């Protein structure tokens, strides 16, 4: 439905988007994730035909946005970061105008029904006769969304649709977006990670204009786990570190919780090795009570940091082998 091929966008000497490629299939919600200034908005502006790419091309619903902008734009709804509202128009007038310039061929009656339908869908019908300039942030965002939906586009591009909303509005907006997924293909940008996990079927992570990862939120968390990490809770206050270190395949043990009734440990295992059974046996064998044993997944937050702070990661990787060797030595000595 959306195909971005080797997209590059430069502003003078500054490269905002650097050779970005990805595809969005029909009915998908693609999360476009990156820190501020990563090139999300630039990419979206090219996809929506707001500006031309410096290099590469974008095909929306079968139309190249650069060579057939009108056809592509007829099939794309766009909610920019700041909803493009005219402050002195009422919500109804504004949507009517949007309908006029996006679907010219409607009769007045058809246009009115369409405006009414969209207002209902985005829950702004109670503000229909209020001026856009006097709306609250949440309503503005939804009127902006209504504007993006007015021509029933196949593709929706939403630039940070939940930015600046309160938690309740965020949940509402997410539900709204999820509800739209069946009829529309959606690209949604955000720098808020849980949003991606909750709304999107696939994630593109972008940093400094480059794509650093494309996958489903689940796969990303799995794939990036690196070494498997387990969390173990042991009853009592007896130190279980040495018992855990003795388990084959365990690289490192850290005590994370100290409580009157239990101790919590994080166990780092060698990659692709399931040590859960052995860990359980070791704890029970040492005469301790096993209260909890679960694999820990990195949250998207951590993945995001890992991916977007490459330099630090490279340094950490360089330091890691020495550390591991030390641990192993300790383990054998112990």
């Amino acid at each position, binding site marked *: 439905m959306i195909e971005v091929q080797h997209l590059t966008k430069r502003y003078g000497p500054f490269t905002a988007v650097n050779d970005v490629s990805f595809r969005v299939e029909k009915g998908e919600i693609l999360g476009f994730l990156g820190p501020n200034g990563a090139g999300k908005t630039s990419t979206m502006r090219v996809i929506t035909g707001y500006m031309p790419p410096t290099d590469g091309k974008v095909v929306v619903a079968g139309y190249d946005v650069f060579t057939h902008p009108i056809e592509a734009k007829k099939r794309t709804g766009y909610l920019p970061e700041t909803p493009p509202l005219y402050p002195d*128009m009422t919500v109804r007038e504004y949507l009517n105008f949007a309908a006029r310039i996006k679907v*010219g061929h409607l009769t007045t009656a058809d246009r009115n029904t369409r405006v009414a339908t969209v207002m209902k869908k985005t829950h702004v019908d109670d503000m229909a006769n209020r001026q856009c300039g006097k709306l609250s942030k949440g309503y503005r965002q939804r009127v902006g969304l209504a504007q993006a939906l007015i021509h029933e586009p196949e593709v929706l591009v939403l630039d940070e649709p939940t930015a600046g909303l309160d938690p309740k509005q965020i949940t509402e907006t997410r539900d709204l977006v999820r509800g739209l997924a069946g009829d529309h293909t959606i690209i949604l940008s955000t720098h808020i990670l849980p949003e991606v996990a909750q709304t999107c079927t696939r994630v593109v992570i972008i940093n400094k204009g480059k794509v650093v990862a494309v996958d489903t939120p689940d796969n990303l968390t799995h794939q990036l786990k690196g070494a498997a990490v387990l969390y173990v809770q042991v009853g009592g206050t007896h130190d279980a570190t040495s018992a855990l270190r003795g388990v084959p395949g365990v690289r490192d043990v850290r005590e994370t919780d100290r409580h009157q009734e239990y101790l919590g440990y994080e166990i780092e295992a060698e990659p692709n090795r399931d040590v859960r059974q052995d860990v359980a046996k070791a704890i029970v064998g040492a005469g301790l009570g096993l209260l909890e044993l679960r694999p820990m997944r990195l949250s998207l937050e951590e993945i995001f940091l890992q991916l977007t702070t490459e330099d630090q990661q490279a340094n950490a990787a360089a330091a890691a082998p020495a550390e591991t060797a030390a641990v192993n030595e300790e383990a054998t000595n112990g």
Partner: protein
Amino acid sequence: MAESLRNIRAIAAKELRAYYSSPVAWVLMGLFAALFGYFYIVYLDAFVRESMGGQFGQGPQTVNVNMSMIRPLLGNASILILFVLPMVTMRTYAEEKRSGTIELLLTSPLKDFEIILGKYAGAMAMYLGILAVTGIYMSILFIWGSPAWQTVLSGYLGLLLLGGGFVATGLFISSLTNNQMVAGTASFVIFLLLWIIGWFGESAGPFWGSVLRYLSITEHFDDFGKGVIDTKHLIFYLSFIAFGLFLATKSVDSDRWRG
């Protein structure tokens, strides 16, 4: 074609609405009416004196309301619009760029020329509204006198073309910035320059003098006030308008490329 017209109309209607939903339009119309009214009274007074003088055999034998009243009055109006039109055009693009609504227009299935012609038509409609106020004064002349309507009409045609050139230029200047005050001031300076450029023509040599006089946008207005519709002037104004709109189109397009 039908679709383009529909889009242009939609944008023009939106622009016109924006003028009239804010006090700007009313203030401009009021201001213009007051200033025009002042000149009207001054010229009417002069005209009445002149014609009375004529009766007593002191002045010229024939006094003509067209030549001694309407022509200088419309000449003054042509200077007045120089002050008023920057206020009409300054917000057209600058405000859309500042508030981000330009994103709606540029991502809607509209062609650049449709947006520009729509905005042009909207601003021209606003200008017509301002000119319409002067119709009140003119109708008084027609009720109690009998001016030649053809001359009046050609004078208005001249005003329309002159204003059309200013509006096209103002649209272009507004598209260069996202600050409407900057757009307004710059437009005013440019309009002023286009007006007084003819003065420099006086002191320049014969060749450059004629070039500068030709470029002066008000220089071409005079004949319209006399009731003469010369294709030379018609072509000057029409190409002036076309050039302004062309620049505006290019400016919006280049803005896009710069992002």
